[in-house]
């Protein structure tokens, strides 16, 4: 099932849902004809869209709103915080092309602080699916939940068959005593590659798909840090405020420490190009991740990374 099919089905089954967009149609191309006046395109007006979503929510609606991640989280930030966060209204943010998925657009379109911003808003919940199946598995619980939510939309396909989603729980893909990789979003597919390479080098490697970044699965972080010699945080986000920060906060809260290697964007935006080139240039392919962890090069072959179709 695709994102659009799930959203259509959900909205047709429940009159409370309205679908909104700030002229970002890629995810909802067929929905206007099916939902009629419960589809609302406010044009390129992210702030007004969020304010209007709050008004609709005041009247009992559940608005699922769409815009590019950078503009939804940053252009409209104060509207999200003030009109969705303070009143705790069930406004469901679907953020498009987050992180590396903005590929060739450049820094204006790079949402690489979105997790930090959204998790800083009281009442807001934050999610980052590993692929399309993970996305479609988690959305029914997120949309049914009474709080506002922020979801990093990721419609890429992987071969991985995910376990059922539970809000606030990570997906423990594998356990390992040498290394555990914690990740979320599109880098899950590169993490799977890195794990195979590391295993071939004789290491015991764990992998955790974080899924739910707020509420976060503290237990998964604590157990990984206490049972693995090295914890790796892997994210297409600034190093400040994302998963590396969440791990640090969690360990400190539990009066623990650990050896943690962060893969993140440290005080920089990424080089704009098509996605496979971005990952290669920034050192985020599975092979590059594994070799940086190992400290040496291997004979492993990086599988081809598919270029996403342009969609805004």
């Amino acid at each position, binding site marked *: 099932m695709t994102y659009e099919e799930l959203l259509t089905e959900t909205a047709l089954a429940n009159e409370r849902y309205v679908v909104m967009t700030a*002229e970002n*149609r*890629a995810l909802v*191309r*067929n929905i*206007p*004809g099916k939902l009629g006046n419960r589809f609302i*395109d*406010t*044009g*390129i*007006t992210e*702030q*007004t869209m969020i304010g209007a979503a709050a008004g609709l929510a005041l009247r009992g609606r559940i608005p699922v709103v769409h815009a590019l991640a*950078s*503009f939804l989280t940053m*252009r409209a930030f104060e509207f999200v915080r003030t009109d969705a966060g303070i009143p705790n209204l069930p406004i469901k943010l679907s953020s498009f092309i987050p992180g590396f998925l903005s590929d*060739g*657009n*450049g*820094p*204006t*379109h790079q949402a690489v602080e979105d997790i930090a911003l959204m998790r800083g808003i009281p009442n807001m919940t934050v999610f980052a699916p590993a692929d399309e199946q993970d996305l479609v598995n988690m959305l029914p619980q997120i949309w049914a939940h009474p709080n506002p939510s922020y979801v990093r939309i990721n419609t890429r396909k992987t071969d991985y068959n995910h376990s059922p989603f539970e809000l606030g729980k990570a997906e423990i893909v594998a356990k390992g005593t040498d290394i555990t990789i914690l990740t979320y979003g599109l880098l899950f597919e590169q993490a799977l590659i890195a794990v195979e390479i590391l295993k071939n080098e004789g290491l015991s490697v764990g992998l955790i798909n974080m899924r739910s970044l707020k509420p976060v699965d503290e237990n998964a972080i604590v157990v990984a840090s206490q049972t693995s010699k090295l914890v790796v945080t892997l994210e297409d986000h600034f190093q400040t405020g994302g998963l590396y920060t969440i791990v640090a906060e969690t360990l400190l809260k539990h009066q623990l420490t650990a050896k943690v290697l962060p893969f993140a964007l440290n005080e920089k935006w990424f*080089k*704009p*190009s*098509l996605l496979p*080139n*971005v990952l*290669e*240039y920034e050192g985020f392919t599975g092979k590059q991740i594994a070799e940086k962890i190992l400290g040496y090069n291997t004979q492993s072959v990086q599988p081809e990374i598919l*270029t996403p*179709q*342009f*969609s*805004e």
Partner: protein
Amino acid sequence: MQSVKTNFSELEAVALKVREHIIRMSTDGGCFVGASLSATDLIVYLYAQFLNVNANNLDDPNRDYLFLSKGHDVPALYGTFAELGLLAPERLKNHLSTTDHIYWHPNTRIPGIEFHSGSLGHLPSVAIGVAMDIKIKGGKNKVICIIGDGELNEGTCWEAVLVANAYKLDNLIFVIDRNQFQANMATEDLIPLEPLHDKFTAFGASVKRINGHSFDALHEAFSAFPFETGKLNVVIADTVRGKGLPSIERRADRWFCNFNASEVEDLLKELHGERITQLTSETLVVR
């Protein structure tokens, strides 16, 4: 690059070359072809004829400024830079490569780009700041901001008009590329803008509405700068999205285009008046 030419055949030749550059950039990842072609004549006119900006005066505080706020039209700007000597033409082949800085939105690593853009409704305000400083210093520089018509959805564009009016910024020109489309749809079918001339006039600006593909009309309008003492200048340039390529002109599904190699060859011929290309690459249809 100011001159007193009034025969614009030379500019037409430059614009044709710029359109060729845009078409060549629309493959291997693609670019925003429609918005670039609508703004081409405008950008060529302004750099070749109106603005005091060239490869040798980019650091001169007395040069003129052009801010490209809509951003999607940057291939037209790069193509113009290539034709006017601000950018080595062979660098256009580096579009989307990690070896260069040429991608879907403008950035200041390319000399001549005054400010990065891509998030809509920012540069009208940035242009105001530059125009304010020029006023304070008593300078004669002209400041232009090219704004997309869809971009006018963003409230900050209208805040900027209010502020420019309050500070009587008659050294500033907002040029609206009125190509009738925002990304997926016709503006008048989604968030209607008309009567646009009246809207700007009501906000205190002095407004001219012209054919944005006619060098004569562009020249007549810009030669009247400043339009009225103490008033923000607004030029509404009526344009056609995709201008020059009948196969994509005014088509809602052809704003971002990632053409295959044979389409590019056919489109280059179409630009020169040969038969209309049968496009097979994927479209971005709104249903």
